[in-house]
């Protein structure tokens, strides 16, 4: 093995890992101890590797992510049918259940409402997980509207009159299934944390994108963890308004 061949092997060498005991590296490492140039080259490579490795491992993990994962799982378990957790019982009636499922899957096959729940849940998640990052921070609602329209996100939305009385704080453009979603943020005035002033979030998306969007005049209220939400459609848009509070809180702005 010459020095060049050793370099071609040692470029993959990671000190402190399983590589140290990998026989593939043994001969090249031995050569690096007798070849001074190769030894210096290897020491440089190791130092660069360790510096880069540190940078990768410093990637900050958002606070609350673990709790979000665990709470979602609990929610799924809570909604799972009891029979589903009792495989033994299921086995005894599998034929009957099969027929039942066939019949019910025909009548209750996935319909448009599934998509709406997913959209609403995903939007709520964004604001519940951590204070959302805004693309534009301003209390000028006209500027927000222009910014969104310029970025090809829904900008011709209608803000409920009660919500329009709250102070705007900014906006962001999100994506849902590849479609732009405008998030307009407001401060109800009841929030006491000056560093995170927004506590009301209006999400606007093209109505045709969300299967099962409510009909006009048929708003739907739903509580998602600590966030109250109301969902409605008007014109060619579907709206979700979420706020840190219960249904009574969110009704004040709808």
């Amino acid at each position, binding site marked *: 093995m010459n020095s060049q061949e050793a*370099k*071609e092997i040692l*470029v*993959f060498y*990671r000190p*402190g*890992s*399983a*590589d140290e005991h*990998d026989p593939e590296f043994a001969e090249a490492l031995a050569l690096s101890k007798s070849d001074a140039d190769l030894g210096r080259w290897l020491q*440089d*490579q190791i*130092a*660069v*590797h*360790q*510096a*880069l*490795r540190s*940078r*990768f*491992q*410093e*990637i*900050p*993990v*958002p606070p609350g*992510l*673990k709790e*979000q*994962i*665990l709470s*979602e*799982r609990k929610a*799924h*378990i809570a909604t*799972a049918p009891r029979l*589903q*957790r009792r495989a033994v019982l299921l086995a005894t009636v599998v034929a009957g259940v099969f027929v039942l499922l066939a019949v019910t899957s025909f009548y209750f096959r996935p319909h448009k409402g599934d998509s709406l729940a997913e959209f609403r849940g995903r939007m709520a998640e*964004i604001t519940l*997980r*951590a204070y959302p*990052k805004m693309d534009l921070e301003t209390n000028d609602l006209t500027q927000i509207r222009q910014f969104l329209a310029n970025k090809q996100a829904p900008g011709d939305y209608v803000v409920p009159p009660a919500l329009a009385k709250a102070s705007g704080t900014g906006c962001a453009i*999100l994506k849902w299934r590849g479609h732009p979603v405008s998030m307009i943020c407001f401060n109800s005035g009841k929030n006491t944390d000056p560093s995170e002033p927004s506590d009301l979030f209006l999400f606007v998306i093209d109505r045709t994108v969300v299967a099962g969007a409510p009909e006009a005049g048929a708003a739907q209220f739903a509580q998602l963890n600590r966030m109250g939400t109301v969902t409605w459609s008007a014109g060619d848009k579907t709206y979700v308004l979420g706020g840190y509070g219960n249904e009574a809180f969110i009704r004040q702005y709808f």
Partner: protein
Amino acid sequence: MSHIDERGGAPAGLDFETLVERYYRSLYQFGFSLTQSESDACDLTQQTFYIWATKGHQLRDVSKVKTWLFTTLHREFLEHRRKQTRFPHYELSQVNCELPQISPARINQLDSGHVLHALARVDQVYQAPVALFYLEEYSYKEIAEVLEVPMGTVKSRIARGIAQLQKLLASSGAADQARKESRE
């Protein structure tokens, strides 16, 4: 209808909370390396554990849990990206190991954001292997399993990827130095 059991789909001896505690950070960091987006990385991490909760019970070899989770996150990322481009597979012998001259001191001046910004400019096919190379003490066999490509392909991608990454970091360092000198 998906199956979710009390252990969150885990094989015997592994409960969901322990798995989350053990792996959510490294999964998120891998997801963030691929997407450069906090929101997307969170979604990928959550989706990975959701899939584990629904399908994890199918895994019989408990020792493969970590690889299974990383493979699932990577699959979800690829599914999300839906990139159809076919990438050439290079044999190891074709790889040139000549790395650009960059000092550890230069890298220590950078934060992880700079390094990830450079990674985002590396050819996409090399990004995941490079991230796994630096993030985790995986063996090359395990990286090949996670990415579902042959080991020779993984090695060539890592070699090319780290060469591109270091070249980008070196050139950005040279540009910073030139700017500094012109100000002086």
